[in-house]
């Protein structure tokens, strides 16, 4: 298991990972996302380190799947660049092991990669008999390998709570958190079902649609946070956050953390398009990270101040 963060007496009962619990224990958590291997393995290492220097409290690492149905064009582009550069689950785990960052790592990927890991699917395809016998191992080998690589949690956008029991059990066995996404449309029984499966933090999707940076932050965010008020698990808001001002507003509105993906991936993409040096791109990632982190801190401070309504 990872020793990246000293354990605190934070509310560890909400999850399996003490490091993730600690990330939310003391002020708002800044949670950046990058696709691992975008645009290549070595540059990607530098980029993730830059996020860490910029104040990341948790880092979400995208493991690219060929059919990422929850992603908008920005992150799709990142996943394609990463796959084209040869990223695989095994290289992803090697990457996580090679990283020497403070922040705990969460892997974001799609269920088929988790489900197939270690099963040897595909290898015998041409020789497969027509009876359809398969030897899929289920999610356990992936989670075991992720834990060994120091991954503290998983986010799987295409895995609904109803189908999550095998992965939940594996995560509990190996001490990983399983983060679920709650949409603006998630209410009632569905919300209860998801919240009974979630650990670490809940990913509050700020608006409908796929990932992507937006200039506005939706009213749906506030409504979602209100709906989640009764649940005792940290609430991290994502989808569309791109500036320190957004971060400030969202944390002031009650979020325990902010998740930022597309705005960071845009910097990587621009580095590719403009042929910038790895160091230049890393500097920009670090600078935006500081802006976002500072914004979140300002929002937290504003919230902590006594107000008339409170």
């Amino acid at each position, binding site marked *: 298991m990872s020793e990246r963060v000293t354990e605190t007496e934070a509310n560890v009962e909400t999850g399996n990972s003490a490091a993730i619990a600690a990330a939310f224990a003391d002020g708002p958590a800044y949670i950046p996302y990058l696709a691992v291997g975008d645009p290549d393995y070595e540059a990607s290492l530098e980029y993730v380190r830059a996020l860490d220097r910029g104040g990341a409290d948790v880092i979400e690492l995208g493991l690219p*799947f*060929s*059919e*990422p*149905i*929850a*992603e*908008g064009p920005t992150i*799709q582009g990142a996943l*394609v660049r990463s*796959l084209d550069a040869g990223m*695989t*689950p*095994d290289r992803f785990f090697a990457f996580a092991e090679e990283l020497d960052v403070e922040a705990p790592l969460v892997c974001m990927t*799609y*269920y*088929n*990669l*988790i*489900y*197939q*890991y270690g*099963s*040897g*699917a*595909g*290898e015998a*395809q*041409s020789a*497969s008999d*027509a*009876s*359809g016998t*398969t030897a*899929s191992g289920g999610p356990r080998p992936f989670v075991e390998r992720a834990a060994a690589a120091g991954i503290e949690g998983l986010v799987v*956008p*295409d*895995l*609904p709570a*109803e*189908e999550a029991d095998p992965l939940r059990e594996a995560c509990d066995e190996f001490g990983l958190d399983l983060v*679920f*996404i*709650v*949409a*603006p*449309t*998630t209410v009632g029984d*569905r919300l209860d079902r*998801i919240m009974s499966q979630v650990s670490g933090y809940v990913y509050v*999707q700020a608006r*409908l*649609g*796929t990932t992507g940076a937006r200039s506005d932050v939706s009213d749906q965010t506030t409504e979602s946070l209100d709906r989640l008020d009764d649940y005792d698990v940290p609430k991290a808001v994502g989808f569309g956050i791109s500036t320190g001002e957004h971060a400030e507003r969202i944390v002031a509105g009650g979020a325990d953390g902010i998740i930022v993906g597309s705005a960071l991936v845009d910097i990587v993409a621009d580095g590719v398009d403009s042929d910038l040096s790895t160091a230049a791109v890393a500097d920009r990632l670090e600078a935006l990270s500081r802006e976002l982190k500072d914004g979140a801190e300002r929002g937290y401070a504003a919230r902590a101040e006594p107000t008339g309504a409170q």
Partner: protein
Amino acid sequence: MSETGPTTSETTDAGVSTDGATPSRRPGRERGRADGKFGRYGGQYVPEALMPAIEELTDAYERYVLDNEDGFMDEFRERLADFGGRPIPLQRADRLSERYDREVFLKREDLLHGGAHKLNNALGQVLLAKYMGKERIIAETGAGQHGTATAMAAAHLDMPCEIYMGERDINRQRPNVFRMKLNGAEVNPVTAGRGTLKEAISETMRDWATTVENTHYVIGSVVGPHPFPVMVRDFQAVISEEARAQAIEKTGDLPTDVVACAGGGSNTMGAFAAFVDDDPVALHAIEAGGSTLEVDEEAGVAPNSASLYAGEEGVLHGARTKLLQDSDGQIMESHSISSGLDYAGVGPELAYLVDEGRVNPVAVDDDAALAGFHRLSRTEGIIPALETAHAFGFLEEHHEDLGERVIVNVSGRGDKDLDAAIEETDKRDIAEAPDMSMFTGGI
């Protein structure tokens, strides 16, 4: 080649309901309706933002399709008759019957309005969207057949319609793109990946994730999250409901074999649904064997689309099913001479029926399919879609393993494929093909 299924022809009058009635609530038809599961296959593997839409659609499916609320199914059948031209004949193929020394019947879905079976589903779903109060239709398309059927149905029912289509497919299928536009649909090119069907499905799901409140996604096959696989099957089941009654009327008995091509599997499940509970009837799903069943793991390419025959269990586009994937679980780029079969997955119910031994999956390669295309054109005066042609490739190779009365589902007509047929025929030496010299000199 694989072994074929049981060749039983022991159907007895005593064992068969010959009154022409086709109960839609027999066990095989109930499968998957309650929970979207077909054994280990099926499910609802979708982003959370889509879940409310899926639940709303499930509710609408149960009320309108299963319980005929507000007379939905009555209106659906009436529109299928008046707009679609149903019932569709079951025709005895005289020369093929002679050639193969058994009764060969053709279920002529190529005669359905639009020239393929696709309208059965598209009309059902667009009508359902209307009953649900939706204001906008979106759909994906590969070859363009589902896109054109959806555009027709949307125009017929006065619904705005947008079709997502891979850029590469747009270039391969220009006449179909024009047909969609003629019917008033928008066609949105998809440039991700290789720009074919699986990317178009992903992109349509993304649109739906943003617009679920006023939009219905008309999925084109028995794939995707529940309730799509059962709902599309139930709309397409009219094929086998008719065929079963027609076979009994014409021959006094059930067929011994039903043959249908399989890509995603909508015409396949449509042709099989009413026969699944008739144990003596052998069901053959004919997949695109492409150029070879070998896969190129390095390039992520499977030069075939035979997910039932050669695929492995996995999760794609909302369902657990059989897929063409590499050892990491990345989805392969599939291939077929027919773009309508060119998909790396297959409906979860077919995956289940294959595992159960109820459906016999067979891969027929590009060469045999193209020969089948020419054979049916020349001997029966019917130019089939290249998808359909795979079923006739199977018939040529395996007729001796079949029983006395064979139904082949002619899922679509081949007009859309003429350019591809000219190009592909010119590369090969096919006995039944016409002299190609006057067509390949730069027309």
